[in-house]
């Protein structure tokens, strides 16, 4: 974790030495990296300055204005903190969307990751046809947020849909799932979990990176399958688990596509699927309150940054890097 956590906490521990802090071992000796570092970083830096940073800062600026997209920048009105005030004090649907999003992320993210890891472990071995199975499991994710997916999903999860037909076989009376404000969010979660292909592929790639000789060594030491999983697979996979955890959490909180697709862009029925970003999109584009939407986006950024920071700070207790910088 030296990469990220070390410049922070390490510096604090060692008494805030400016730049060379956080380096250790081999890193300390290499001062020649400075130039090379920036050479390798230059495309990203250029992209940051030319493509990413300016729009981000613009949106930060707009969050203090009444920008409505249609009015030219030169005429937007500075409203100070009014947008932020409105969000925290006068907008019940904002807080509703926060609750919806938290519920969604807390349930869907762990389940999706578990499904992805489980299937990845099943599909890690080489056997005839494994490629086909990987493809098949990835198929749902290929659909993204297309119009067709919306129709498929709604048809399966309405009163006459396939899900209820299946339940009827077991004598269970179904619900109108997607059309029921008490169950629409759960349907959304199922959709999100169903598209577990991306973290699965990342897990698979991570599993491939585990050096074989570690298993051989563990085998020689008489470690069983479970022991090997705990002692070799999990630690070696931890950077990738960490990546998936961070990214799927961010993804889960952003969770726009599924909600948009399933509710026809409304967040309905009765706002039951009004995810944070969907609310933001409706506010910005449909209601043309882009200034307010920008404020929402920046509050979102701060909140997710805090969550991500917590992940990073716990990471050094359980994420193992082979580059030796976590020890």
């Amino acid at each position, binding site marked *: 974790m030296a990469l*990220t*956590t070390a*410049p*922070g*906490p390490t510096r*604090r*521990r060692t008494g*805030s030495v*400016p730049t060379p802090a956080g380096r250790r071992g081999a890193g300390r000796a290499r001062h020649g990296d400075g130039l090379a570092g920036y050479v390798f970083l230059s495309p990203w830096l250029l992209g940051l300055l030319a493509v990413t*940073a*300016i729009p981000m*800062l*613009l949106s*930060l*600026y707009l969050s203090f204005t009444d920008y*409505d*997209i*249609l*009015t*030219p*920048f*030169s005429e937007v009105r500075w409203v100070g903190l009014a947008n932020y005030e409105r969000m925290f004090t006068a907008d019940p649907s904002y807080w509703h969307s926060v609750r919806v999003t938290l519920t969604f992320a807390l349930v869907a993210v762990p389940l999706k990751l578990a499904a992805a890891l489980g299937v990845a472990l099943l599909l890690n071995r080489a056997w005839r046809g494994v490629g086909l199975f990987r493809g098949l499991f990835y198929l749902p994710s290929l659909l993204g947020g297309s*119009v067709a997916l919306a129709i498929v999903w709604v048809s399966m999860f*309405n*009163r006459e849909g396939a899900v209820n037909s299946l339940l009827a076989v077991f004598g269970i009376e179904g619900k*109108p799932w997607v*059309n*029921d*404000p008490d169950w629409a969010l759960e349907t959304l979660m199922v959709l999100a979990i169903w598209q577990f292909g991306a973290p699965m592929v990342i897990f698979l790639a991570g599993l491939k990176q585990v050096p074989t000789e570690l298993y051989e060594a563990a085998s020689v030491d008489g470690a069983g399958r479970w022991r090997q999983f705990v002692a070799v697979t999990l630690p070696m996979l931890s950077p990738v688990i960490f990546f998936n955890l961070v990214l799927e959490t961010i993804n889960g909180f952003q969770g726009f596509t599924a909600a948009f697709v399933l509710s*026809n862009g*409304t967040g*309905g*029925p*009765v*706002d039951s699927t009004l995810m944070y970003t969907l609310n933001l999109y*409706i506010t910005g*584009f*449909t*209601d*043309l309150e882009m200034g307010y939407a920008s404020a929402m986006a920046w509050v979102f950024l701060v909140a997710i*940054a*805090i969550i*991500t*920071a*917590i992940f*990073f*700070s716990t990471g*050094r*207790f359980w994420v193992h890097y082979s580059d030796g910088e976590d020890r």
Partner: protein
Amino acid sequence: MHPATPPTTGTYAVPVHRTPVRRRRLIRGLLAAVVALPLVLGAAGCGDEKTSTDPNAPVKLSIFWWGGEARAKLTEEALALYTKKHPNVTFEKTWQANQGYFDKLATLTAGGNPPDIFQIDDNYLAEYASRSATLDLTSYKDAGDLDVSKFPRSLWQYGVVDGKLAGMAAGENTQGLVYNRTLLTKNGLPEPTTGMTWEEHIAWAEQVAKKTRVPGTQDPSADYKAFWVWLRQQGKDLYKGKELGFTAEDVTKWFDLWKGARDRGATPTPDVIHEGNATDITKQLVVTGKAATSWVWVNQMPELKKNTKDELGVIAYPGDPSAQWARASMYWSVFRGSKHKDVAVDVMNFLANDPEAVKVLGTDRGLPSNLDLRRVVSDDVTDPAMKQSIQVESDLAQKFGEAPQVPLKGHSKIRAELTKAAESAQYGRASSAQAAEQFLNACKSAIA
């Protein structure tokens, strides 16, 4: 164990050894630069270029609309006719489906390059007009360059926002109640008729439900256009000036009316009503067979027909039909900053009044605005569903009342809020009065 190191500002926080003041100044400077950059660059592009006085100078107009493939073919053909008559004018045509149309139009406008001519509806006309994104067409109308003399008066007036003519009606439609004729005849039930009261309609729907086990009517309490007609019949309106034209009591009464209908079994269950509340043609209950009637626009009949084997009929919404009006199904508007305003207006005029062009365009965007040409086009129509909808709308046109004002900015939010409030009443999460109050509060902040 590591010592507790509070990750207060995030573990990858900006280094703290810089003085905060310097940083703040830096950020402010950066922000200023960032904001200024597009302004400076944008200004360079927006210089007032002299409009050429030479009538034969080559002109390229951009034009943007939403619709399906059929509309694209017809529109392109009509524009080609214009180019044939004015070889110096060519078009840069962009079309897409309605999904994302207004997102893109707004983004283009923000970028300073909206199309010269664009299609728009009454949902957004006031939004664009009140921000002066649309050209005021009044002087063109007065000079006769934009000829609306053959339009029904209320139709072109339905394009006036704050005293300015912001859009030209590209077609006319009106509210239509579409019912499943096959289902009714099979069961020996009477067809509904224009002029039935709301109570009669509900009683009829109950009768249908009892006899056929198909609910007689979709509960339209979430549908702004039904609510609007009903309000006008009570002597109210959706908007009056810059205010709402109705009170919480009106909304409660409206919700109660439909609560009664639901209790009598005249409508489907709330989850099915929710399905039908989507504006999509393919989800209307009359074609999915989940109700005997749907609340739509008259000119949607032919497309509805394509989705069902059953025969359909169409009439006005219940109550006095004079509460309905000649509504512009959509408009053409010109961007105020267009470099070729005069030509753009001339193209619009051509699309509305040139006999050949109107014939090409047919009834795709609604009935032609020009009444003389409407008759010609109507005679040519062969599609029976289309014939039927034209017939009904022409009959209704005799009874139309004055057009209401164009919906205020914030209208799309109000539509969404009505749906939310009505559905919370339907799902039993709120009483009619509570839902009405919730709706009123949301409306007030939407138009504030």
